[in-house]
């Protein structure tokens, strides 16, 4: 009797399900390694990042800095647990490190709070020497042992001299990472603030330096109006240009990326940073836990459904001795 019951297929299935369910109490999470990233994010907080040429969440205009912050917050939320992020801000000619790498899951709240609090008012000087800042950010990433994500619109202020920017002193490709170009492709006015931080309109053409007049004059200087080799080597008229307007300087940033061995990506909106970052950064093994319980539970569920669904799956109306629909249970 008991022996016959023990041979019953459904009893065996139920016992298997019970064994699997009981195993869930004993199964410890399986330690394994997952792909994570270690990133130093450096954010340009100079004046041109205040240009509002993005669309915000409510459809209104959003500044490049606000969009960058939103994108970085989305990036932190999307990075696999165990990844770590250090944060620096850039203005003048150097990055300033706010903190060393912080784990993105456990310490998400303070990390997110700091990203939300990034402000152009933290800038300590108005200049924006992108190339110098980028080179020093690469050094910083190297000293931290991380990859670099450098977010900027690429607008040098003051403009670079004709001879070009400073040469890259490091080894191209020694630090991996990504330059993120923030800003629209069309020219937009740059908001201007007074010394108490209130917005007071936009920069005009004569408010900013349009041409870098340090160093030797350009080759065409002789043909300029009022040229005098000693007294007016750059000509006598004021330089005109569009440096008071801003767009993302993509060719320049791509050239910088090529020179330093970094990748380049355009910031399209308040998201979408994870794929280019994952492609450009070094995948690093981070410890992770694999919870085995869902697998055990799913197997137990399959066995249980087999027990209860099997009679349904048999052909209805079959004259099998063991199958009488609505038969009395005993």
């Amino acid at each position: 009797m008991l022996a016959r019951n023990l041979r019953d297929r459904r009893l065996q299935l139920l016992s298997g399900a019970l064994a699997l369910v009981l195993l869930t109490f004993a199964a410890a999470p399986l330690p394994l390694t997952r792909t994570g990233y270690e990133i130093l994010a450096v954010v340009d907080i100079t004046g041109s990042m205040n240009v509002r040429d993005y669309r915000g969440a409510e459809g209104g205009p959003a500044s490049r800095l606000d969009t960058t912050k939103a994108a970085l917050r989305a990036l932190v939320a999307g990075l696999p647990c165990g990844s770590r992020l250090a944060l620096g801000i850039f203005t003048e000619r150097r990055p300033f490190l706010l903190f060393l790498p912080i784990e993105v899951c456990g310490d998400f709240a303070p990390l997110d709070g700091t990203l939300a609090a990034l402000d152009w008012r933290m800038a300590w000087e108005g200049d924006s020497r992108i190339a110098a800042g980028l080179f020093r950010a690469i050094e910083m990433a190297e000293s931290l042992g991380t990859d670099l994500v450098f977010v900027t619109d690429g607008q040098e202020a003051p403009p670079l001299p004709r001879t070009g920017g400073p040469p890259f002193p490091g080894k191209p490709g020694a630090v991996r990472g990504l330059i993120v170009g923030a800003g629209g492709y069309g020219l937009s006015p740059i908001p201007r603030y007074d010394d108490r931080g209130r917005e007071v309109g936009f920069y005009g053409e004569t408010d900013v330096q349009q041409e870098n007049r340090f160093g030797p004059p350009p080759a065409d200087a002789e043909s300029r109006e009022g040229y005098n080799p000693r007294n007016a080597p750059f000509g006598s008229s004021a330089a005109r240009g569009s440096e008071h307007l801003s767009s993302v300087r993509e060719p320049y940033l791509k050239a910088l990326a090529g020179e330093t061995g970094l990748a380049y990506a355009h910031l399209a909106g308040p998201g979408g940073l994870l794929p280019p970052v994952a492609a450009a950064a070094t995948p690093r093994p981070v410890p992770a836990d694999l919870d085995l319980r869902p697998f055990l539970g799913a197997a137990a569920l399959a066995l249980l459904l087999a027990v209860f669904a099997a009679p349904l799956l048999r052909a209805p109306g079959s004259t099998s001795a063991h199958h009488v629909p609505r038969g009395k249970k005993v």
Partner: protein
Amino acid sequence: MPVSAFLARLDAASPLLLWLLPLALLPLWVSGQRVTPVPAIRAAPSDGLSRAIGRALSLAGVLAIGGVILALAGPYRRGETVTRTGIGAQVSMLIDRSGSMNETFAGRQPSGGEESKAAASRRLLGEFVGSRAHDQFAVAAFSTAPMLVLPMTERHTAVRAAIDAIDRPGLDYTNVARGLAMALAQFGTGTAEASRVLLLVSDGAAVIDPRVQGQLRADFAKVRPNLYWLFLRTKGSPSISDRPAGEDTPQAAPERHLDLFFRSLGVPYRAFEVESAEAVADAIRRIEGLERDPIPYTEQRPRRDLTPVAYALSALGLLILIAGKLVEADLRRGRAAAAEATPARGVSRERRAA
């Protein structure tokens, strides 16, 4: 705890899986037991116990399947904030990142085994953070402009990562006024739930613009923190208490006048003037000692995983089902089997059930 409050805090990690729950009704319709053909159901007398056992087995099936589905969805009880009393404080740190912090206490570039003022503060403040479990920290830095480094948090690893960055090369100036405003803002706008500490670490002072002084006074009166100024004095530079030889103006003696300003704020205030790393350690120990009041702190109770409970329910259902299967009788062969076997308890019970 009221049941409704408990239910309101239940949640699942992957709630979409709960759509599988109707599968748990399957046992109400199909039985896992052996089916025996009988010519007429009326042939057996109506038996209350049989019906009860049949119903129990159906419910056990519901429990087994439903429990597993529930467990797969990852049920948990949401975390909650509980207020307790412990030793701790909200500490807003304001750290000078001007270039002179990277010099030694002797005012030189560090060489050999020498430690810069920034490195000494990094080491000692790092020890301060985490020495008490319930402290909360916020970090702001200042040079020309104030910089929010970390908002108020109880995650000490993050705070240590921020403190570890303070011996990196600093910036130009010491503009303490805006830094103080930011450090005060770090406490938030709510009323004080814990004792509040504003810890200023700097190696110099600056003139606070009289126009800003009024606003700062108002902020201090609102937040009412205990103010500590860890003044890392370089050897040979003026002390807090030194009166300048000439005119006693803020421009001539900014340290002394910042001290006078702090004294006039009407909040508990102490200045620690230190000239060596040992003195810094001593000052930090004394600050720790002063902030020993029991204070209410809020603790975030983590969410509780209820998956084992769901699996336990499923296991209970399965045990009943298996028991049902083990004592099941086969009426067709049962008579012959029963004749051979000694009348075991299971068999007799099954007879009754039948």
